[in-house]
């Protein structure tokens, strides 16, 4: 059935719940584009025939045109939704993506992510006075400057603002400034403990 591959891409993306980014299906995308090319070429040929009198082809031309539009819609929606998920990664995870996620992204998507990061950084620097304002911090209203955290996995040495280093070993607990830990907590390295 024409258009099945394109819809398959959309279906896979839709079933990836919670904003997860599945691997980039370059091969299926290429096959869909190939299908579109074939449809277009056949239509080109038939249009000139139809103009010289074969009106029974008009239906077929119209059918192929519908298929082209359908494939186009599926591909555009697929790419756009992936970008929305990648954008969410910047806000939820941070500016450096782990390799596991980068594996799932096409080269152009990585490029887009870098440009988005830059745009966001420029914007954040322009608001809030001289040092700028980190909008990706304090997503939940803070209750205190320092928080209790437990380490969930071995991370290594971690330096705090006053110069002291802390060794983050699995299951060790620390009392650290909130703004330093927030990103590590979101990435799953630390766990925020409420007293």
């Amino acid at each position, binding site marked *: 059935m024409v258009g099945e591959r394109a819809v398959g891409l959309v279906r896979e993306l*839709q079933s990836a719940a919670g*904003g997860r980014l599945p691997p980039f299906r370059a091969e299926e995308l290429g096959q869909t584009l190939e299908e579109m090319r074939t449809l277009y070429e056949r239509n080109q040929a038939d249009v000139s025939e139809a103009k010289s009198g074969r009106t029974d082809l008009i239906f077929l031309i*119209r059918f192929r045109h519908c*298929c082209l539009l359908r494939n186009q819609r599926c591909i*555009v*929606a697929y790419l756009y939704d992936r970008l929305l998920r990648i954008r969410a990664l910047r806000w939820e995870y941070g500016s450096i993506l782990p390799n596991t996620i980068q594996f799932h992204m096409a080269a152009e998507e990585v490029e887009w992510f870098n440009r988005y990061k830059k745009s966001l950084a420029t914007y954040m620097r322009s608001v809030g006075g001289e040092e700028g304002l980190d909008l990706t911090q304090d997503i939940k209203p803070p209750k205190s400057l320092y928080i209790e955290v437990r380490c969930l996995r071995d991370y290594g040495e971690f330096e705090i603002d006053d110069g002291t280093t802390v060794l983050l070993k699995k299951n060790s607990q620390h009392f650290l400034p909130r703004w330093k830990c927030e990103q590590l907590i979101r*990435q799953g390295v630390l766990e*925020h403990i409420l007293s």
Partner: protein
Amino acid sequence: MAEAYFPVGPGLGPEENFLSLDDILMSQEKLPGRAESNLPRLAFALGQGSGAGSGDSIPEGSKLEIPMWLAKGLHDSKRRLISVELPKIYKEAWRTVFSADANVVDLHKMGPYYYGFGSQLLNFDNPENPEIAQCILQTFINRFRRIMDSSQNAYNEDTSSLVARLDELERALFQAGQKGLNDFQCWEKGQASQITVSSLVQNYGKRKFTEMDG
């Protein structure tokens, strides 16, 4: 919840949202129709022929099952190529079932996009359109109360039996209700200020990130 991911939602009413994944899947659903004239080579393209190629043509008057996107694209009130019929769930018989008691119907089985698909059906000139529209609206009104109640009262339990008979729109509403409930409970327990791990990270599985460094 993945707070920062905002997908394009389905359209409301007669217009679909071009970029909405939901609407694309909804318009993939099939509806019955009839060929109004000889349709050359369509059999192969629709996957219904035995693959012989350009010889197959569908004779006039034969029954077809075409996806919604194709029906909308080929529909033309001037040039009669294809005529569409209503799927049975939108016909008179089922409409009376809905008006009797909308809550017992398994809308997931009846095509998981009852409301969206029904709204798109209104694009074809069908004399029953006002009744169809009225039926869809009333069904929603009748079922909504139960969805709202169940989503607001099912905390930390398995909800699969509650959502089994809901269509996709209703499931989205149910999830919105659940999210509100969970957020409220979280606030009540004093956990609203607790920084949590991003769900996007959790969903990538238990692979150790330290292994990928370097």
